[in-house]
């Protein structure tokens, strides 16, 4: 059975079903991440000040001073790595939208190039994240180490899972098994890539908020 309204728009919504579907899914994603952001805000509001002693001193702090717990633990994170990751993810968003535009211009080879760049950016993001995580583990820092680290690993971990999910779909659409649809149903394939793009831009959008909230504040 053919799925209705995935090439031609429905008269009542003015949309193809797949686009409305992905937006409703993204709405549920906003609530998922929203719940965790809410948790972050309330954990931060309730976080205490830590007295710096000889035992718990870290670079940038002095013995005897009181430091806000979230600031103290956030000092463990690498701002340069996260900045690079932000730029990498923004680049992947642009290449994703360029991949879709290439299909609109009937250029499959350019589509493959841009989709390949998007995949590469996603992979670079994950590799950097891997080094960030293992760097923490080598310093004996785990989600159980503090409230900040618990919410840090939860938020970035959930975001990382979204990156992996997006990559799986990207690989499928990048390989011949996925993009052979271009030959038989080019419009449907273009719509699929657009829907994937909407998901991917959302993943970028979440990171745009995660970056300052976890690393900079």
């Amino acid at each position, binding site marked *: 059975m053919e799925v209705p309204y995935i090439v031609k*728009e429905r008269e009542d*919504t*003015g*949309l*193809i079903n797949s*686009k*409305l579907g992905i*937006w*409703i899914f993204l*709405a549920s994603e*906003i*609530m998922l991440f*929203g*719940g965790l*952001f*809410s948790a972050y*805000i*309330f954990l931060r509001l309730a976080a205490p000040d830590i007295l710096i002693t000889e035992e718990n001193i870290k670079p940038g702090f002095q013995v005897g001073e009181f430091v*806000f717990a979230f600031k103290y633990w956030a000092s463990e994170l690498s*701002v340069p790595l996260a*900045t690079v990751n*932000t*730029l990498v993810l*923004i*680049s992947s*968003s*642009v290449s*994703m*939208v*360029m991949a*879709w*535009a290439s299909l*609109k*211009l009937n250029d499959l080879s350019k589509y493959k190039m841009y989709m390949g760049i998007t995949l590469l950016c996603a992979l670079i993001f994950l590799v950097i994240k891997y080094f960030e995580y293992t760097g923490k583990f080598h310093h004996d820092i785990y989600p159980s180490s503090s409230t900040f680290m618990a919410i840090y690993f939860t938020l970035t971990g959930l975001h990382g899972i979204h990156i992996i999910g997006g990559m799986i779909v990207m690989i499928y659409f990048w390989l011949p098994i996925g993009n052979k649809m271009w030959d038989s149903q080019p*419009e449907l394939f273009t719509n699929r890539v*657009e829907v994937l*793009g*909407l998901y991917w*831009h*959302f993943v*970028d*959008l979440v990171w*745009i*908020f995660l*970056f*300052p*909230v976890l690393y*900079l*504040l």
Partner: protein
Amino acid sequence: MSSEHSTESIQDHIRVYLIVFGALAVLTIVTVVASYLDISTSEGIFLALIIASIKASLVAGYFMHLISEKNTIIWVLMLTVVFFFVMLFLPLISYTDQVHI
């Protein structure tokens, strides 16, 4: 964005995408620089969230095509934003636990 797009309009879109990309990269650097400014924590939070919101609007507006999207999607999102803020501040109800009436 559906099939009615001509080659010229797509090429216009591509120009806009590249401008937005430049703006997002610059704003990312601005966010990092702003975090080193000698301002209070609340001012820092305000500034960082303003910049993040501008970046998010650029992504949603241009990459996700929300500026030219159908009303059905705009309404779905507006409803989501309302519920998002309701959920965000739902835990505030716990403060009523402290009120002894």
